[in-house]
């Protein structure tokens, strides 16, 4: 602890250099944490788990909601299939099918079925009853509402659809946080697809091992129909449909790697300069009886402190940025909320400490390997 305090005091010796290094580390770690947030959000949306029991029934060979049209009467056929727990028809209207940072998605659903189908939805402002009562009512995802500054009672218009916010909802599912749920008939008419036509069916099955057999059964059933279907587990559907967005986010991995190397180089350079500027002082410490291990520990501690302080600023800055800005990436009607998470915050701080440690290993070795007499005469 005494050596840590000494290292901390050493860092205050050249305040400007320490400050500039910390700012550089903060910028690098901001970028790294931002990239990690995107990767983490994507993982949450695409990685399947044993708890996933939802299938998405889409029009075969269609990828955008505006071109996927299925007859609403498929509902009763799917509902009767063994192993199916619940089905909900969904009409989707989006302002942009391509990859976009500001996608607006309306999901038309039977209002009386929504809560039953998705009990995880919580109305955090306004009321569900208002939504059911008013045909133009909308339940808006929390993320979407933050982004657009919406609250209950507000009216807004997008994609030619005018709605009144009946409630703000939160949900465990990232998709629910970024859409506006409206009445199915209302959206069918407002978006001019016509009554009786939906974009997709979401199907809940009784257990995960039934996903594949039921998907096959659905597609087999409608194979000879005018509107054949392609049924996939929800997360696989996301991964296949939002390919552009996933490729884009995949590319950002390289930016994150670049940020890591930049931070590594910056801290190594700063600590090396510190060590070079204190050759004689290091020798004095050794003359006083400080072991090479103690000297090395102090140098490494300085590197770790630079990494940690810069990392704290950068990572918390990035998390605050994503929290307050509520960014959403959209592609083919699917949305990906870029949400801050505790795991990214912790891994970012861990990475900053690890980089500080790694960057100061060589300078620490340099500081302690030089012969003492030679250093005293430097």
């Amino acid at each position: 602890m005494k050596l840590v305090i000494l290292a901390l005091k050493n860092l205050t010796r050249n305040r400007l250099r320490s400050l500039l290094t910390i700012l550089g580390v903060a910028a690098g770690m901001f970028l790294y944490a931002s990239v990690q947030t995107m990767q983490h959000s994507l993982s949450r949306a695409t990685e399947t788990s044993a708890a996933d029991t939802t299938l998405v029934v889409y029009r075969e060979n269609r990828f955008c909601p505006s071109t996927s049209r299925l007859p609403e009467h498929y509902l009763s056929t799917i509902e009767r299939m063994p192993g199916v727990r619940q089905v909900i028809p969904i009409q989707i209207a989006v302002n942009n099918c391509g990859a976009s940072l500001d996608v607006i998605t309306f999901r038309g659903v039977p209002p009386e079925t929504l809560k039953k189908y998705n009990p995880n939805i919580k109305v955090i402002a306004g009321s569900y009853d208002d939504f059911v009562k008013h045909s133009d009512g909308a339940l808006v995802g929390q993320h979407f509402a933050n982004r657009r500054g919406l609250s209950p009672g507000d009216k807004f218009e997008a994609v030619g659809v005018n709605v009144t916010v009946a409630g703000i909802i939160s949900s465990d599912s990232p998709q629910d946080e970024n859409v506006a749920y409206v009445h199915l008939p209302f959206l069918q008419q407002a978006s001019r697809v016509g009554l009786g036509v939906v974009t997709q069916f979401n199907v809940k099955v009784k257990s995960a091992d039934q996903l594949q057999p039921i998907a096959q059964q659905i597609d087999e059933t409608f194979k000879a129909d005018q509107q054949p279907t392609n049924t996939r587990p929800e997360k696989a559907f996301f991964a296949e449909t939002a390919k552009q967005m996933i490729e884009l986010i995949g590319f950002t991995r390289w930016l994150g790697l670049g940020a890591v190397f930049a931070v590594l180089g910056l801290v190594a350079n700063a600590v090396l300069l510190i060590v070079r500027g204190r050759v004689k002082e290091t020798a004095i410490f050794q003359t006083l009886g400080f072991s090479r291990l103690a000297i090395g520990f102090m140098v490494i501690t300085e590197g770790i402190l630079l990494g940690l302080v810069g990392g704290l600023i950068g990572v918390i800055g990035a998390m605050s940025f994503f929290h307050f800005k509520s960014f959403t990436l959209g592609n083919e009607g699917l949305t990906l909320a870029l949400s801050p998470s505790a795991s990214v915050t912790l891994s970012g701080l861990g990475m900053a400490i690890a980089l500080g440690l790694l960057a100061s290993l060589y300078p620490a070795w340099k500081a302690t390997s030089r012969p003492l007499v030679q250093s005293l005469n430097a």
Partner: protein
Amino acid sequence: MNPLISIKSVSKTFSKGNTTIKPLENLSLDVPRGEFLSLMGPSGSGKTTLLNLIAGIDSPTSGEILIDGRDIAHLSRTELTKWRSVHVGYIFQLYHLVPILSAYENIELPLLLGKLSKAERKEKILAALDLVGLGDRADHRPSELSGGQEQRVAIARAIVHDPDLLVADEPTGDLDRDSADSILTLLNTLATEHEKTIVMVTHDPKASAAAHRTMQLEKGRLVEESRTPLSSLS
């Protein structure tokens, strides 16, 4: 009585490019406990090399260096560091205080290596500050002290852990006459009243006169020895 320092046939050789340099050659020397010894000689005579060997910051090529009966000539770098932290106080010509630390914190440095409590450290530091006459300068940083005061802090740092041996490399070389005299008086007091064995390198005959004994080195060998009359030591 056994001498505190006993140097037997010590030689030191090192290479610089293609040239072999022998700063010390077959040198022997005894220094009794509580003696203030001055080493003089022209540049390159080997006095600083000898001082570094006695302080355990360098090792000889051959020979024995017994300090309080222990041969330090063959200790490893790590063992020497540990030994120094207990037995040696080093005083540098340019004081070499850590600029961001106060006088108190500079003196505390050697004590950070031990297991003393904060209160025990404080007691020792204040005693050392009092001994060097800087009890009222504990919170001052080196930049707020005169050269003489800085050297007094450096001496306090060298004695705070109560080593048997003090080595001083031109401790008055950067000071004006008055400051130098007061530092020499302090060193003399440490030897006479506190039984510290002091080995000092100097170019200054007046500084040398403050020591109990002066040895002249030339080309790595001891060539002359003189004792200061007791009557002239104040």
